[in-house]
């Protein structure tokens, strides 16, 4: 049994209490949500927080709702809820695609959306999903709240825009008409981190793509959206040539490294192949061709 270093434990009943605790305890305190990244790191003593603030009692952070032209998801919403949500599946099937390949049921029962984004692992699936969907993140502190885009949320591997006395409370995804989305992942084994994954989302205006986005995981310091991809998709008509062209742009705009999950060359190839596939499915879904 791997055992963590000593730490103090506090349990917050609500968001206000959680933020107050965080402000009082300072930078050596960490929120613990599902704990499926933090606890293993603590057991390996790669993370040694002095305080854990347990936010599993913050009931106001568990929700998926439609409000003001957005889907709003509470930061403590667990993977399982994301997987099973019909509302999400209807608007953003990419969530269900991704959740089906995230870890295993035990992890999905506990792990949360907010925890996944705050872990900021470059290989993390939901970060790629939120990047693809151009989500924004609501960050609260005692002095109020601010909203940052996914692009600004991740500032480096395992680093986010959330300050020491702040808390990620909500993720907002804009609802736009005539959209489709999909997620493709290659892993060495079920439940493993992505070797590479690619999310794609498109919104149509008639027969042409009004807007399109691609988010990649495990090919750089953070999950990234790729501006040249969006430019190439804007106003384009779907075709195999387009998917190939966009796949090549995706491959050209990533910087993977050799590691045990695969060679950089393979990952670059996957960035192309998976982008093509995700885009193809996203377009099909936007056209009502696939459930």
């Amino acid at each position: 049994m791997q055992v963590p270093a000593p730490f103090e434990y506090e349990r917050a009943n609500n968001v206000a209490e959680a933020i107050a605790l965080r402000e009082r305890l300072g930078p050596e305190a960490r929120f613990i949500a599902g704990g499926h990244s933090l606890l293993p790191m603590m057991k390996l003593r790669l993370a040694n927080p002095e305080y854990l603030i347990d936010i599993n009692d913050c009931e106001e952070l568990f929700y998926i709702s439609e409000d003001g032209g957005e889907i709003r998801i509470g930061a403590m919403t667990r993977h399982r809820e994301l997987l099973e949500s019909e509302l999400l599946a209807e608007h953003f099937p990419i969530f269900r695609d991704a959740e089906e390949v995230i870890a295993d049921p035990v992890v999905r029962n506990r792990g949360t959306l907010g925890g996944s984004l705050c872990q900021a692992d470059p290989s993390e699936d939901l970060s790629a999903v939120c990047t693809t969907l151009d989500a924004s993140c609501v960050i609260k502190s005692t002095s109020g709240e601010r909203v940052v885009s996914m692009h600004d949320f991740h500032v480096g591997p395992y680093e986010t825009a959330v300050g020491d006395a702040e808390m990620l409370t909500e993720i907002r995804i804009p609802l736009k008409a005539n959209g489709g989305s999909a997620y493709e992942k290659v892993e060495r084994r079920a439940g493993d981190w992505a070797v590479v994954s690619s999310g794609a989302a498109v919104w149509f205006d008639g027969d042409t793509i009004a807007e399109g986005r691609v988010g990649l995981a495990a090919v750089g310091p953070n999950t990234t959206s790729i501006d040249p991809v969006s430019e190439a998709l804007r106003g384009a008509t779907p075709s195999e040539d387009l998917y190939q062209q966009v796949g090549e742009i995706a491959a050209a705009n990533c910087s993977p490294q050799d590691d045990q999950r695969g060679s950089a060359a393979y990952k670059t190839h996957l960035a192309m192949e998976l982008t093509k596939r995700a885009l193809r499915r996203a377009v099909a879904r936007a056209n009502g061709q696939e459930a």
Partner: protein
Amino acid sequence: MTATEPQAETDERPIGFGRLLRKEDPRLIRGMGNFVDDIQLPGMLHLAILRSPMAHARIVSIDKSAAEAHPKVVAVITGEDLAAQGLAWMPTLSNDVQAVLATDKVRFQHQEVAFVVAEDRYSARDALELIIVDYEWIDPVIDVRKAMDADTPVIRDDLDDKTDNHIFDWETGDAAETEAIFASADVVVSEEIIYPRVHPAPMETCGCVADVERVSGQLTLWSTTQAPHAHRTVYALVAGLPEHKIRVIAPDIGGGFGNKVPIYPGYVCAIVASLVIGKPVKWMEDRTENLVSTGFARDYVMQGEIAATKEGKILAVRTNVLADHGAFNGVAAPVKYPAGFFGVFTGSYDLEAAYCKMQAVYTNKAPGGVAYACSFRITEAVYLVERIVDCLAYELDMDPAELRLKNFIQPDQFPYETKTGWVYDSGDYEPAMRKAMEMAGYDELRREQAEKREKGELMGIGLAFFTEAVGAGPRKDMDILGLGMADGCELRIHPTGKAVVRLSVKTQGQGHETTFAQIVAEEIGIPPEDIEVIHGDTDNTPFGLGTYGSRSTPVSGAAAALVTRKVRDKAQIIASGMLEVSVADLEWNKGSFSVKGDPEKSVTIQDIAMKAHGAGDLPDGIEGGLEAQICYNPENLTYPFGAYICVVDIDPGTAVVKVRRFIAVDDCGTQINPMIIEGQVHGGLADGVGMAMMEMISFDEDGNCLGGSLMDYLIPTALETPDWETGHTVTPSPHHPIGAKGIGESATVGSPPAVVNAIVDALKPYGIRHADMPLTPSRVWETMQGNHTPPI
């Protein structure tokens, strides 16, 4: 020999052989097992080990004062402290020595450097961080191919006059004869074939509770061991403790796979700690410690060569092996077999010649070379021959099934002596192969493959046919550290006809409590539920060498059958007195003796048991009681075999491999419990998929182990494995009392080449003849690009 066919599959409660639910399962599936980490003793302390962060470094100094000052720490011990007691080094299973705690230098990353004993597990672990060790870097030897280069640092400068990293050279077969055949053969195929370092990764890590009783000097050691008796003797020899004062108990064990054969420094540390402190001490590895420091397996770089006629008659196999043994030679193998039973690399084929030359070297990696479900290196041997045979099929453009069928040793050739001197006891290979092909629908699969290839789809069909050598001894040839490989068994029938059988071997999940009860039941007619199997406790079982190398059924299973026959012989004499006829006039009907020609006159074994212990006289010269003990020394190994077929599909765009089907036909001779056999096969097949597709303990150039967690060292899940399709043939062993051969490791041995052969077969349109494990998507893709690089 009384070979007994398995009972009908519907027979749910056989008295003897047949399907029977496992007796151990009710407690295990209810979470009521009793594992080493469940042992709690009054006043028990906890031990944690400080490990080296570097692969090769001189220890300049160790400052343990801060750790000693920790309020809950009882003791901090370094290598220097152990050296003062003469306990800093211990023998390995291969007559090398290994540091219990490093004194002079560390020789692999995560080597044991010091230990802390504290009041609880957390404090022990915390205190490790208070120990300050000053290391002086030495360049590590990580690339096995460079271990023997001039100017390479000498890892084992502790050994007298050691000037290089050489361990041993070994050869088998006839070099000249083999060379002559290769020189004149029509076709010669050569390929470098690598079996990377893998880890047994049992679910339960290694650990122990040591309790030295101060007044009597008695040591009780609850330990994760596959070989409690052998361990007891080694502790007596190492620590100088009198052997009668040592009791080793292996309670429930959560998987061994060879990982729990060696004696690890942690066990010795716990014993020393209990001896010094006078309290019970528990040491339990965490997952990382298990993966990075305990016995690995394989790590062979094999240059394989095969010679054949152009018609596909295989003439000879030759191999040159470079073996990486890590920093200490801890290979678990009989003393005369430094490469284990690798000599069976001639496979299931009738060859004219064979030759192997091997060099084993030290590197700055964890020691080991354990029998990870491999029957002493047979996994490597079978992988080599089954891979190189497929390479030959590729060159001859011949169907790999046809090539194998053409070259099998024929039934009338058994017992068959191979060109490397192994005497295969029995075999009938073609029916097993044909059965597997029939189950697979082999011809239809090939047709489907041809159609798919037309469409650019990648489908592969891989075959492997293996012959194993299991059940070591005989003792004249085989010993471990001087202990002969023979096993005892004791049977007592109580007055009411219930029985207790005591084994020297120990289950780690194989189902001994059921299988051995069935063996006794088959021989004496007492229902298995009335037979208690006692094992894993040296004070309560006879001596023997333990469970590994699939030896439980071949050796201890034979002992159980023979001891039961010995009891039955005595029962017959008592029965003759009860029925007032001569012994020769009695006949045995599983469970009772009756008078020949007068079946109404009979006594049951239960009647006899009561008579044996009861009032009244027994026949002349017969003592009371109904029990016996024997020690079984096997006449030869047994040679199970099997035919495996794997079907894979590969996504050409992502190179992701999906194992679609796996067909396994095994022949382990007489089957005792077909359900348990299938369970053993299922587990081994999953193992094989793991090794073929994802498992490898790798290192960076500084010697950092990159496989220290189950996120890094992947083992397969149910999602990577298909529904197994199993079948069997039955070719009993002629020399085993019940004809059984052992099944524990067959599937682990046979499945990796089947999976790899299937993947390589799928890549045939790319002109691929070979690719090395682990065939992760990335490796498969690199291979498709023509960029295959060896994993080590």
